């Protein structure tokens, strides 16, 4: 498509025009990249500034810093219970991701490797449900969660509502829709001879699932794990409406409270935002390959 792809053709004549267009392209992309990166860069910058800098300057935050310091981070970590909120996020996200992958891989295995009457219908039920806006179901869900009894240690109050278990359950359910879809497609690409050979060797369904198919799905599972971690970490909606105890909220839903408390101190608010952003950015930068693969494996995710 570019000149590189068609070597030897009109190369000389095109070279100058091409170089010019390359410069233009880089200019366009650089400007756009700056616009994209600016809000985060500014967030980092602001979070390092003392608040006194901003209120004493007539142009507020549009000014040079007298000094850059990590004080705002130290302050918000010490005063805002952020560590607790991060812990809550971990308590929700990690089990939810593992459960989602486990359950969806079983469903995907059953519907992709065995023919039943209802294969397609099952897949449709999961996929369509996954695409529903969660606001459609949240009102009855809150009522339902409050009606479903649950025993300790899964629940401290005897219900599903206001419990980690309840939030983990709805994440797992919703995301199972997506992961089943992706994994069943992936499994369909695995040769059926593998399953047949295992059956001839007398392997049962569970052995075939756990010893034959699952190991081959590792790349897809790794990609989905990274993707699901990010999505569940980023959830705001469920945590907001399925918890009423402030101390149980994960970091994203807690931001809604913290915003009110720190709104007049923008540098501290910036520090809070940056802290909340760090985990997913680190995961993305370190595991970028998996992340993008996960997305493209199941581009259907809403």
């Amino acid at each position: 498509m570019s000149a590189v792809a068609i070597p030897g053709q009109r190369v000389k004549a095109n070279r100058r025009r091409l170089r010019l267009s390359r410069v233009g392209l880089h200019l366009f992309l650089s400007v756009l990249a700056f616009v994209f990166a600016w809000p985060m860069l500014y967030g980092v910058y602001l979070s390092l500034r003392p608040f006194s800098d901003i209120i004493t300057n007539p142009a507020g935050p549009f000014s040079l810093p007298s000094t850059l310091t990590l004080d705002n981070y130290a302050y918000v970590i010490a005063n805002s219970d952020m560590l607790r909120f991060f812990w809550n996020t971990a308590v929700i996200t990690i089990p939810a991701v593992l459960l989602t992958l486990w359950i969806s891989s079983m469903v995907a295995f059953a519907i992709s490797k065995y023919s039943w009457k209802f294969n397609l219908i099952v897949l449709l039920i999961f996929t369509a449900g996954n695409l529903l806006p969660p606001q459609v179901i949240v009102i009855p869900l809150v009522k339902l969660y409050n009606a479903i009894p649950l025993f300790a240690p899964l629940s401290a109050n005897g219900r599903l509502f206001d419990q980690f278990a309840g939030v983990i359950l709805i994440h797992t359910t919703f995301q199972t829709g997506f992961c089943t879809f992706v994994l069943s497609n992936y499994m369909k690409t695995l040769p059926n001879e593998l399953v047949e050979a295992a059956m001839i060797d007398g392997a049962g369904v569970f052995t075939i699932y756990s010893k034959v198919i699952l190991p081959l799905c590792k790349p897809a599972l790794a990609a989905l794990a990274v993707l699901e971690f990010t999505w569940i970490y980023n959830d705001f909606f469920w945590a907001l409406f399925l918890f009423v105890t402030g101390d149980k909220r994960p970091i994203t839903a807690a931001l809604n409270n913290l915003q009110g408390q720190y709104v007049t101190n923008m540098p501290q608010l910036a520090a809070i935002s940056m802290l909340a952003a760090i985990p997913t950015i680190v995961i993305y930068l370190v595991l970028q390959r998996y992340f993008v693969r996960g997305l493209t494996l199941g581009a259907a995710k809403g």
Partner: protein
Amino acid sequence: MSKIDTEGLAPAPEVLSGAGLALPDKRHHHYSLLTARDKVLLTLMVGVPLFVFLVLIWGTTLVSVALSFTDWNGVDPIRWVGLDNYTYLLNGYPFFWEAVKNNLWYLLVFIGFATPMGILLAVLLDREIRGSWLYQSIFFTPVVLSLAVVGLIWQLQLSPSAGNGFIDSMLTGTGLVAPANAPDWFGNAGPLFGIGILPSQNMASVLLVASWRHIGYIMVLYLAGLKSVDPSLREAAAIDGANERQTFFHVVFPVMAPINVVIVVVTVIESLRAFDLVYIINHGKNGLELLSTLITNNALSEAQLIGFGSAIAVILLLVALVPIVAYLTRVMRTEE
């Protein structure tokens, strides 16, 4: 985009797999060959998750529909009111039409701006250019951020100068704009450019921010699709003398039909689900009304207008079913 849609309806086996996974193998193992124990196991493997899913997702959906015909405050006995909630929604409640308008603009801006922009970036970055990886990383970073965080970091930019927002502090600090005339990006609910049919000014700000996140998402999806296009197709087009633009629109775009459909679905669903961003900014009022926030504000806040909120939920459901059904129809054709 309409052209893409129709082309997208043609059978395309790899539609679901996006990156072009191979065809599903039709030679399934016959259920009848399994032992009784294995049959039970398989039934449980599918049955238990399916049951939970049906109850929590589809069961609650049906309950929402039923509740929309009631006037319930969550405590007193449920009273059936027929279509009252819908009548009031359509004829009396001013924020409903505001929300419908905003959801429509969300969709329009995503379809008409953010998604094409993402596609453009994907096409540009698909070439072998220096620093492509860096550009991709920068454009994609907003996608991994929680929308709550996105709302906060953009408020650092777009708060009024009295709230130390950066842009307004810059405009007023440099004397470019008088403080009284500085834009109230997230607060001004007046129509954009004073034209009633356009979204409110603060909704326009929200749409820009939402696009900031959506563009990178579409870019990555599309980029993966482009990578899977057979290079020989392009070479053939080049030999035939097609320029880059012609190659893209006449060769690449049509073979990308499956991914185009996926992107349309993603875009529509995302714009219907929009919630977090406006909620963190002002809970979805003063020009930022969306169907999703109207539901929770009326039914899951201090106000417990459960019937009324459910009626809004049903409208959202009906709208969401359009892309869902269209998409599933495709999936079914592909499977069969």
